[in-house]
């Protein structure tokens, strides 16, 4: 009896010391471990301690301490990253009560914070997690000129506070017919007007910053939360993620970024294969539309090979699940990368679009995106080539915790 209590006591102490992630001290043995930080390791082992990756290497080199739970898999990858999604905002039921991805009351609302709306318990978050997706860049959807902020979360945790990785990751903008109004007298109604309004807003933000800095105390402009956010874009603290698909919209996006010296992420980019030199010269990363996005409207000329062409041109590229207004309510970025792997990207390049390259584009590569000592212990386990439709995800580990072991 005494012994039993002391065991409980020790466990409690350990929990208090290390937080909930200490619950599972885990070693993962993979026939192939794709670390994304060097060549794959055959018969590899990943040691997880206190929510972080403690050691990675050949299984015969990594010694596994007693008491560690051992998980085995054919293939181990870093937890997958969906570089642009709306899960947690655009809910499964598609009814007004679970659709928070787009506020239509005004075309420019950078003050809308993603963390105020993210639903950590949304079923679609669990759905994508069960395929190995552990980190998601999500938030306000394309559809208004500046629709709001985005956030980066882990797909585990019951609240935004428990899930959040980066509170404000980017400001989402749309240069596409999606952001145009068809009603007479409403703006923006054309491509020209969209750009005119964006320019005007950034000029206003420049002016606001200047006046807040230089004006005398009683003459300072009132605080404006929207302009404060745009000021953070202007000083390159926050990237502007612009969804643009037609070639002319992509060109406008590059022009805008140059005019205001904005740190840009190009999103969607269906016709970007027409502008490889320009995008490369501008040094802009691209989060390509889902491979299986429907080829209609401004996306009618999309190609399964866009990610491959961008990559070949030396442009940083990630893939995404995107936003869906109907069915499927979310795509699964793993399958989008799979199709890219079948259309020009090598296996490693395709996996990079949903791991390390996505992490770099989002600025979170110090924490996630590869299996390296010191990084968050986020892993996905598969019983075969993760891109094959008939392969199962047999385990998902987030922050060192086994959060799913139901084959999906």
């Amino acid at each position, binding site marked *: 009896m005494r012994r039993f209590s002391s065991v409980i006591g020790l466990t409690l102490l350990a929990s208090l010391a290390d937080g909930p992630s200490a619950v599972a001290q885990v070693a993962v043995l993979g026939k192939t471990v794709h670390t994304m930080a060097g060549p794959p390791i055959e018969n590899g082992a990943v040691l997880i301690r206190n929510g972080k990756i403690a050691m990675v290497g050949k299984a015969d080199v990594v010694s596994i301490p007693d008491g560690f739970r051992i998980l085995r898999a054919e293939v181990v990858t870093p937890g997958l990253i969906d570089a642009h999604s709306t899960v947690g905002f655009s809910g499964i039921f598609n009814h007004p009560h679970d659709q928070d991805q787009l506020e239509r009351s005004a075309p420019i609302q950078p003050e809308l914070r993603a963390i105020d709306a993210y639903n950590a318990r949304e079923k679609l978050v669990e759905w994508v997690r069960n395929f190995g997706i552990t980190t998601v860049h999500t938030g306000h959807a394309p559809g208004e000129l500046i629709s709001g902020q985005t956030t980066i979360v882990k797909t585990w945790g019951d609240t935004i506070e428990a899930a959040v990785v980066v509170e404000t990751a980017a400001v989402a903008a749309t240069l596409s017919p*999606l952001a145009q109004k*068809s009603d007479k007298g409403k703006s923006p109604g054309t491509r020209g007007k969209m750009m005119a309004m964006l320019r005007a807003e950034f000029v206003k933000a420049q002016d606001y910053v200047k006046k807040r800095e230089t004006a005398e105390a009683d003459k300072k402009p009132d605080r404006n939360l929207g302009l404060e956010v745009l000021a953070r874009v202007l000083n390159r603290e926050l990237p502007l993620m612009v969804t643009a698909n037609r070639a002319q919209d992509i060109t406008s996006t590059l022009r805008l970024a140059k005019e205001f010296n904005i740190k840009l992420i190009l999103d969607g980019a269906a016709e970007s294969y027409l502008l490889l030199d320009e995008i490369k010269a501008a040094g802009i990363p691209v989060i390509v539309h889902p491979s299986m996005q*429907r*080829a209609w*409207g401004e996306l009618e000329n*999309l190609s399964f090979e866009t990610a491959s062409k961008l990559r070949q041109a030396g442009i940083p590229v990630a893939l995404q699940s995107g936003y869906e*207004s109907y*069915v499927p309510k979310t*795509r699964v970025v793993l399958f989008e990368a799979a199709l890219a792997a079948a259309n020009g990207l090598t296996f490693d390049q395709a996996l990079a679009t949903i791991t390390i390259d996505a992490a770099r584009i989002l600025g979170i590569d110090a924490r996630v995106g590869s299996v390296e000592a010191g990084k968050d212990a986020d892993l996905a386990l598969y019983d075969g080539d993760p891109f094959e439709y*008939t392969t199962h995800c047999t385990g998902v580990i987030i922050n060192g915790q086994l959060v799913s072991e139901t084959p999906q």
Partner: protein
Amino acid sequence: MIELPAIPNRCLSTGGEPPGTPLPARYNSSFAFGRNGVRGSRTRPRGDGKNHPRRCKLRSSVRLAILLVGVGSFPASAQDTPIAFTGAMIIPIVGSPIEDGTLVVHRGKIIAVGPATSVSISADAQRIRAAGEVIMPGLICTHSHIGGIGGADSSAPIQPDIRIYDSLNVRDSGFKRALAGGLTTLNIMPGSGHLLSGQTVYVKLRQAETIEDFFIRDADGNSLGGMKMANGTNSMSEKPFPETRSKSAALVREQYIKAQEYRDKIVRAAGDPTKIPARDLAMEGLGEVLERKRIVHHHTHRHDDIITVLRLAKEFNFRVVLHHVSEGWKVADEIAKAGVPCSVIVVDSPGGKLEASEMTFQTGAILEKAGVLVAFHTDDWITDSRVFFRSAALAVRAGMTRDGALEALTIAGAKMLDLDARIGSLEVGKDADFIILNGDPLSVYTKVVETWVEGRKRFDRSDPKDLLYAVGGYGAGRDQSPYFCCFDHPEGQ
């Protein structure tokens, strides 16, 4: 069936046959959905037994025209010499896969299929070496919306006089994408925003100048198709649409009863022109459903909506295929017991609406285990025809058998369209509709290399013009906007 709109059904029986005579055996295909042993038989349209000489004369001239068109669409191409494909792994669907198989096609039909050792190839045959490749039947999509569909409008919830072929653009790029995905036969349907949105059309993706060139015809030259119906939330709306599920069923019952009475009046009139009711094309459309000639393709998601469809089908004795069946897994035994087949959609996640929020990849596996005949469909634009194999592969991931999943892309769909005597497997005598793949059909890395329809190559991945549609790129865009409910993309509506 039923494409000659100007000609009333009652003319069809003037050949002296009594109403209800079974069609020749080769068209008496099973709708049975094999495993449940329920067999239906198609019958001649019931008529009023009277001659209508003027109309029938017109009809025969139309038939002649169709014959001429038919001849025109099978030019010399129609393969005066046999073509033999050798060295491939052949998956005939009916029967076991054949390593080092030989397939010989001639004049649009399969004339031999089997192991290289047992198939003799005539000296005049053109030989095509297909070693390392896989040959299987062309894929059949039981539910597609490509071609620029425009079915029923918002004026009424039930519009059986709508014929979807009146809206189709045969040059639509969607057909090129479908060929790139290995599809050879489609059931093109109007949408699901109505209780009954019109007559569907079964098409083959032949070389075509007009939509008529796509038609699949019966022995009399009539084009074949089904009837699209829906229940659940898509077809509920403000007046004159139903606001509830009960009202949905009530409106359907009302119309079918009207159609029964219309039919009975014609029978009672016994040819007396003063007693025959005025022609009503909508009632004629429903009449074909009541006669079990036109299969109902029924959009339905929730378990209770599925049961409602089964109830209505029993009440009015119509033949039905359940489509989508998101919650079919909850009522698999009931579906099996009713002997009704399911055409299942596989999408990347559940939801998008309440009634699809419990959708699962396991639906195919669960229905298969229950003994239900299962096919998949693209519902294109919902999923892309170019990745149709994915539906089967994801179902296998969730427990469906590999054989069952491949059947669900081919012969099962053929049965659901009443076309299994002609297509859906590689068997001697069947249409030469087949595809050549460079690997395992269920692998993401596998490509459709060629698609052949009735012995003619319709897609060739090595041709840059075809490749453009297979992978996309500048110029692969659509020709016209599709009309489609429920999406909010301004350029996409």
